[in-house]
């Protein structure tokens, strides 16, 4: 895992430089492609080892540092400049870290025995020489990396004042092979791309994965029956149920914030319209009535409204309609093509695919500042924006050469990190909700 330390060095100096993906066996490559020199300087000292047991199978401090770096708000000190190795507050020589212009320092120790990884850490303010936080985090089995993600979350929350979203999961679709040889997979992985697990595999297209609010289920569209159909699947057990296989399109599922309803787009009554399905009874409520394509519904966080894509004015634009029905209001007026909205946790920031000519980029519209829009991706065929639960970062898909890749980008667009499946096409990322520790 030492190689990742080099990565941290690179992030300081290299801005916008892309590294070629390694060809070869299936694997996920994580690369930071640019960085922010103005981010908060923090040192995460390699953790010491408690007792004489076996070494921890994951490098907790290194993962904490990676997390803090990639969110765009922090800049960790490169390993080569970490000249002392304190593992507890009493060992910290603050003058050293002040000279290195560090604002915060994280020290700690790990213990690993019986398959349980336990990490004790302290967060110190370098200038005030004051301890801000200390805690012990333990995990076992396949969750060892979560120890580090939870520590990073706690540090993030202490310094930034917002709950961290490193200990979360993402879902995405991969496609390997072409035509009749195509293999589609729905994959769930940690938020940094590690621990990928295939939860659905099919020779026919899979698309539009979306998380239930409790993080236990994923709804998605599958063509395994020859036509589109919507399924809801339990991630842990694999049990799934068919939710809709009506005539025509069964697409664009999204859970309501309370998890009791599913918004979706169905065309069995003639052309794609927005419906809300009560997941308890299966009853459908139709929200839109016109000859346009109405699709890609997304709930506002209060569950009161649904924002969707419609080409009723000619080209696709975003509209908002009460979830109980009503008159849709158009939201987007910049750009020829606006679609596939992602609403952040407080409903202020709408990320969308904005197309102008042949260039499709991810735009973020801030409703709290009068609808001001900024681009957070460079194009040309960027798609599928998805917010982290704390809106610190976005995931999206991009086409580079023959294959799609995923990017995680900080909300201000300044730090981008590439997640590449080297042997295939990766697409349609969906960031899951907070996990319970």
């Amino acid at each position, binding site marked *: 895992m030492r190689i990742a330390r080099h990565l941290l060095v690179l992030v300081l100096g290299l801005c916008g430089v892309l590294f070629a993906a390694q060809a070869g066996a*299936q694997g996920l490559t994580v690369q930071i492609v640019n960085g922010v020199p103005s981010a908060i300087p923090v040192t995460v000292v390699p953790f010491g080892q408690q007792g004489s047991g076996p070494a921890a199978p994951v490098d907790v401090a290194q993962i904490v540092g990676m997390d803090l770096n990639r969110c765009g708000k922090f800049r960790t000190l490169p390993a080569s400049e970490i000249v002392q190795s304190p593992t507890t507050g009493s060992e910290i020589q603050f003058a050293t870290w002040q000279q290195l212009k560090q604002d915060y320092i994280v020290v700690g120790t790990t213990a690993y025995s019986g398959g349980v990884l336990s990490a004790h850490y302290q967060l110190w303010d370098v200038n005030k020489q004051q301890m801000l936080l200390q805690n012990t985090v333990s995990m076992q089995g396949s969750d060892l990396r979560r120890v580090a993600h939870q520590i990073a979350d706690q540090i993030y929350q202490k310094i930034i004042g917002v709950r961290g979203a490193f200990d979360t999961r993402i879902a995405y679709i991969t496609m390997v092979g072409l035509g009749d040889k195509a293999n589609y997979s729905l994959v769930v992985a940690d938020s940094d791309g590690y621990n990928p697990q295939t939860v659905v*595999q099919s020779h*026919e297209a899979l698309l539009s994965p979306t998380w239930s609010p409790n993080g236990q289920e994923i709804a998605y569209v599958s063509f395994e029956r020859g036509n589109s159909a919507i399924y809801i699947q339990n991630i842990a057990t694999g049990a799934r149920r068919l939710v809709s296989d009506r005539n*025509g*399109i069964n697409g664009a599922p999204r859970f309501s914030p309370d998890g009791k309803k599913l918004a979706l787009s169905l065309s069995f009554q003639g052309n794609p319209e927005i419906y809300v399905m009560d997941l308890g009874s299966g009853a459908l409520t139709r929200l839109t009535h016109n000859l346009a*394509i109405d699709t890609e519904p997304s709930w506002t966080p209060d569950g009161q409204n649904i924002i969707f894509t419609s080409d009723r004015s000619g080209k696709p634009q975003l509209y908002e309609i009460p979830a109980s029905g009503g008159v849709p209001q158009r939201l987007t007026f910049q750009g020829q093509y606006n*679609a596939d909205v992602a609403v952040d946790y407080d409903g202020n920031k709408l990320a969308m695919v904005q197309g102008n000519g042949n260039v499709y980029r991810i735009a973020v519209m801030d409703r709290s500042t009068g609808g001001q829009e900024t681009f957070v991706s460079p194009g040309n065929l960027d*798609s*599928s924006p998805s917010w982290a639960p704390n809106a610190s970062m976005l995931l999206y898909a991009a*086409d580079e050469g023959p294959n799609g890749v995923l990017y995680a980008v900080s909300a201000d667009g300044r730090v981008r990190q590439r997640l590449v499946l080297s042997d295939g096409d990766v697409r349609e990322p969906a960031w899951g909700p907070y996990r319970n520790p």
Partner: protein
Amino acid sequence: MNATVRVSVIALFCLTAAACAQKQAVKPAPVEAPTATAPATTSGAFTPADLATNPCLRTRVVYFDFDKSDIKSQFSDIVACHAKYLRDRPMARMTIEGNTDERGTREYNLGLGERRGNALASALEADGASASQIKVVSYGEERPVCREHNEDCWKQNRRDNIVYTAE
């Protein structure tokens, strides 16, 4: 120097999810309409053998302009001969597969593919085919025949495929 961290992807085969679906091989077809003329009014009734031999009936693809779903006049011969086949063969059944290029979002493109499929279905019905003979499925941008990011490729992907499910 390659600063990468690699993780193996565990490719678990979930056999239950890998459903067997009848897949129609998509044959490459010329983008321009064939010059063959359809025996739409002159000859007798079509038979299933004509599907393999009649140049017009052998053409099973109709192409579209970007973000459009109208059937261009250059494809009117193809519409006419397939409509005649459906008229001549009341037990014949057809699935029209609507497709788009990769630009735009996947779910919107599902809608656009369906619109294209419906446009061809309507044209066939206007020529006397029965709506009960025709089924429309949209694959959106999920089944490209060409995977490069340029107009030469995109124009091959904006298409309806005609698939006979009963002859």
